[in-house]
């Protein structure tokens, strides 16, 4: 069984985000870069599928050289090989150009199931998975918390929560699934895993190798453009509710919410 896990490297969620002087990007010094947490679920699920059905897990990403660290992490977890599109032409691309770049990589390798994190915790676009599936002309199911592949019948059943319900879906293979918390508990890389990962193949490609033009990817090819970044509206500490006892404080709070905030 051929499985692909697409990953992105993002700032760790404990990072403070500061806007750069250009007003359109963030300050990158002091940022700890990690694999997008939602993509870790994809890598883990790919490894579970491989354990069950055999085959190959290929990790694919787009980004600068530092992304090799995240790919090595996935290889150390147990993935077989990595492909990184490392080309300055892809810089500052929107979801559309990233999906296009990933599609150009993936269409040249065999696959039964592709995993993408449901969204990246940096730009929160939540688009690449569905766009990639559309470009590859395969079905997709997003926000999956459970999946079961029936290789013989060439189909996958999946569960996805929606507001107030859970959908049980069935799709034909090949399929793209976007992953989220609840699907699995991603494993940590073991020391032998880390040692082995150093010897696993990690290929880097340029956009020209993929038959793409530089103007179709990155900022040049993007349809969504950032005009400005601003800090969030500042919230300042409000008032501390006074009272002699917890009961008095509770009564004072309810009164404030009713009469001052007019919210209940």
């Amino acid at each position: 069984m051929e499985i692909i896990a697409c990953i992105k490297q993002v700032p760790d969620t404990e990072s403070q985000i500061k806007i750069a002087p250009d007003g359109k990007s963030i300050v990158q010094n002091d940022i700890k870069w990690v694999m997008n947490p939602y993509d870790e679920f994809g890598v883990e699920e790919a490894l579970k599928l491989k354990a069950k059905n055999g085959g190959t897990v290929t990790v694919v990403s787009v980004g600068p050289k530092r992304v090799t660290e995240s790919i090595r992490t996935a290889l150390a977890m147990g993935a077989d090989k990595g492909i990184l599109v490392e080309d300055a032409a892809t810089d500052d691309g929107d979801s559309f150009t990233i999906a296009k770049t990933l599609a150009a990589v993936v269409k040249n390798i065999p696959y039964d199931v592709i995993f993408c994190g449901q969204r990246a915790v940096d730009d929160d676009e939540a688009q690449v998975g569905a766009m990639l599936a559309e470009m590859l002309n395969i079905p997709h199911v997003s926000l999956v918390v459970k999946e079961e592949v029936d290789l013989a019948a060439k189909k996958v059943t999946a569960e996805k929560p929606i507001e107030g319900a859970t959908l049980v879906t069935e799709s034909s293979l090949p399929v793209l699934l976007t992953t989220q918390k609840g699907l699995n508990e991603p494993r940590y890389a073991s020391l032998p895993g880390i040692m082995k990962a150093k010897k696993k193949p990690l290929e880097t490609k340029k956009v020209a190798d993929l038959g793409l033009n530089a103007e179709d990817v990155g900022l040049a090819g993007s349809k969504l453009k950032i005009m400005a970044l601003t800090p969030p509206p500042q919230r300042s500490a409000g008032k501390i509710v006074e009272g002699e006892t917890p009961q008095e404080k509770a009564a004072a709070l309810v009164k404030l919410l009713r009469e001052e905030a007019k919210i209940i």
Partner: protein
Amino acid sequence: MAQGVMVVCEQRDGEIRKISYEVLSEGKRLADKLGAEMTVVLLGSGIADKAAALGGYGASKVFVADDPNLAVYTAEAYAKAIDGIVKQADPAILLMGASVEGKDLSARLAGKLSTGLAMDCTAVRIDDGRLVATRPIYAGKAFAEVVISSFPQMATTRPNVMTVTPPDTSKSAEVVKVDANLSADDLRTKVLEVRKEAAGKIDLTEADVIVSGGRGMKGPENYKILEELATVLKGTVGASRSAVDAGWRSHSDQVGQTGKVVTPNLYIACGISGAIQHLAGMSGSKVIVAINKDADAPIFQKADYGVVADLFDVVPAMTEEAKKIM
């Protein structure tokens, strides 16, 4: 020449969802600003009778694709049906709600239409005839103002953010029935089952009131007091990442950068210290209340009202006080 605003309505079991009225209201504001029409797309099975009334929200025309294969949402079938309507009507702006369905559908559709999509926006406006959208990134640690260079300019709006305009019930829209033109290729995913949660459970992303518990709850059994307060306030219960990671609450209850980003009117944080990734997920709430024993907890820096006390004393007392007035 692409013109006007098109809104994709979302229905569940044949009923139009609240998020769609938010989007319709915002869509009408944009259309008025452009001096153009607002049209609507409604997909489903046996839903045509809901279409004309959308004129009350300012729609001039409602395109209805009524097909048994559209009864329950699937990405490919819905994207295919809307693709045909968009190509026929050629809107300049295409809007939908950033619900679970809207996020999924808009992304697939933007891929099909080869256009740009601003996801989960908290504000949209017209500047020089073009759509300018504001969207939180890094779960709200920064806001991006974005524009789209292709047509239709697509955007989804975050639930609970846009104000619903009361409808003018004297108006009705022209209803245009269209064929969804579905082939076997569009039906490669089917929904086998819709497992409904207990009636009355409100999703965090759509809740007006959230009572959220963190590590200070000490164990899963203690969430009962939060459930009781939430019931009185007609809200729902959320949790911090540490509470979810400890297995006290389900993953779908998690608020934060790796959980749900929420925008309720009232967010009550109980025994939550206020890690950066949690604050990012709830700082869009209109009013924040923090209840914590530790007066130095970072959550107090973001709270409109802080209560420094043991939540196990304060929360049940609040429930009793709220019962008196609700």
